């Protein structure tokens, strides 16, 4: 069974919600990134989204843009992101979702990325600028491998399209909480709740909510609305703002525990 499916099945049985953590691969460098990821997985993260740095991250806000730039400057690339995934897989069973823009995957070769991602122990791919209409070639390349192509739904997505997205979704559906890029602005919980209820009613797969979740109280408010929450910029920001020599894995782990506590407090069985 695919590790993502296994994780959501176990969580549902325990009446718990998933904490999905995004981290940019190789931020601030390969070794530190690996240490952060390992600690995150040991601190309550249920699914890791490993972000492949890209020169032109149009869907991301300033925090993840800067992380991409740091990682690229440190020599990160798609092939090294795969090596990082493989290194993480050596020590953890946490599902890994390779989170990327389409161009690095396309340029690398879709058959090649499918094969190498599978052998690195990747369980899902989420391509932010690849709507289902353009995803045929990648879906074909992944066919027969245990890698889900994760789809996204947005607040602007209308019901008929939500149904279409949900029908072909694999793993979980990533529900974008609000318009805009990653990591900016506050959240209107009521509005997120309304849209999440609609999406949940139309989607047979687990639904996880992301964009703009930064604190334990966001996690507390949003976790009950879906099957999990996704946190990215709030973790990446810790790496950006930490003073030199700081214990980055420790800082990220503390934030993850804050979010986990917020979620668990509102979702006790």
């Amino acid at each position, binding site marked *: 069974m695919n590790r993502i499916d296994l994780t959501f099945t176990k969580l549902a049985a325990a009446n718990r919600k998933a904490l999905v953590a995004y981290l940019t691969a190789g931020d601030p460098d390969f070794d530190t990134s690996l240490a952060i990821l390992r600690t995150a997985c040991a601190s309550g993260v249920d699914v890791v989204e490993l972000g492949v740095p890209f020169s032109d991250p*149009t869907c991301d806000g300033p925090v993840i843009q800067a992380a991409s730039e740091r990682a690229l400057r440190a020599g990160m690339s798609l092939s090294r992101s795969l090596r990082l995934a493989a290194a993480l897989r050596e020590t953890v069973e946490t599902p890994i979702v390779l989170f990327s823009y389409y161009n690095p995957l396309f340029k690398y070769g879709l058959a090649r990325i499918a094969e190498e991602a599978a052998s690195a122990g990747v369980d899902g791919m989420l391509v932010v*600028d690849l*709507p289902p209409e*353009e995803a045929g070639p990648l879906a074909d390349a992944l066919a027969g491998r245990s890698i889900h192509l994760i789809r996204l739904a947005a607040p*602007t997505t209308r019901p008929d399209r939500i149904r279409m997205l949900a029908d072909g979704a694999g793993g979980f559906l990533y529900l974008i909480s609000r318009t805009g890029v990653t990591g900016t602005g506050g959240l209107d919980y009521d509005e997120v709740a309304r849209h999440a209820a609609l999406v949940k009613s139309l989607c047979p797969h687990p639904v996880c909510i992301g964009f703009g979740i930064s604190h334990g109280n966001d996690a507390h408010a949003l976790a009950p609305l879906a099957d999990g929450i996704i946190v990215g910029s709030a973790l990446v920001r810790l790496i950006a703002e930490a003073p030199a020599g700081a214990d980055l894995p420790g800082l990220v782990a503390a934030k993850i525990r804050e979010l986990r506590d917020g979620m668990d407090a509102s979702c006790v069985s």
Partner: protein
Amino acid sequence: MNAPLIGNYPDATGHFGPYGGRYVGETLIAALTDLEAAWREAQDDPGFMSEFRAMLKHYAARPTPLDFAARLSDHIGGARIYLKREDCAHTGAHKINNVVGQGLLARRMGKRNVIAETGAGQHGVATATIAARLGMSCKVFMGAEDVRRQAPNVLRMRLLGAEVVPVTSGTSTLKDAMNEALRYWVAEVEHTFYIIGTVSGPHPYPAMVRDLQRVIGDEARRQMLEQVGRLPDLLVACVGGGSNAMGLFYPFLDDPCAMLGAEAAGEGLDTPHHAASISGGSPGALHGAMTYLLQNDEGQIHEAWSISAGLDYPGVGPEHALLHDLGRVQYQGVTDREAVEAFQLLCRFEGIIPALESSHALAAAIREAGKRPKTDAILVCLSGRGDKDLEHITAYMKANP
């Protein structure tokens, strides 16, 4: 080459063969399908199209002239060179054609805020112009490096009431301005109309901008037949994103005319300093479309390089990518030096100061004219005027005597 090209692309899903499409985040999909539907309805609405044509005539000063460059042709001693004088259009470049159309469409869709990206500032000025004319608020995203290089156009935009937003991410040039415009749009998508300045971006932009710019080629085709009595043997236009080239080429695609797209070869195609996405790039997806890109083996986008800020972009419109693959249009590099030489020739021989972008087309045309007999006719899109470039070109000539 026998199957008709006009009216065949893009297909129903917005693809030009393997290129084009809609490579964007899910949040923008609804806006793009709405835009596609609104544009289709507007095109079928005689009222909308007649308002568009009237505004092009009375406001944008169309038709622009077809002008025989007699002294330049004699100097080269080969084929006759005809200039499609887009530099005579309001705001000094072909960019106005597209913004009149998109501005009217924004108003029709009830959007009161328009945004744009700009490199050289020509599209930013054009967008600020139409926003003032139609009473809309306007934000223009411009790389901080370009804000510095193109100060006169920044001043123009501000005089016209637009807010110029300097972009400092990435390389601080046109691609980063487009990144930032997309980021702003995804946040404010409900009330904002994004006026993309070239035949690039997600569907329907490449087709819509082409259809708004084809007035260049439609006029030129008629003018050639009226004034010269025949079609040109060769069409030449510069290609950054490629909107003036698509506008000129499109109505001629099914005619027996050769076509040449001049890409910015900067310091040379054998150096890393160029902006020739087709001649020196490979296929990939950026800014919503599959097309040719300047990129490394792992799909990271390279910084483009050109003396001309308007060609300084690492991608190209997807229809150009298809026309290249089909062999219908030849794409060739023109270096900074060749462009500057052509710039000087046109100043001296014809009393026209061309934009640096257009000077790339002129250089390619001059190269071709020398190889062709005097009985041949070459039609060049003189896409804009060069007032904005004077400071820059003076500095270049001083540094490269």
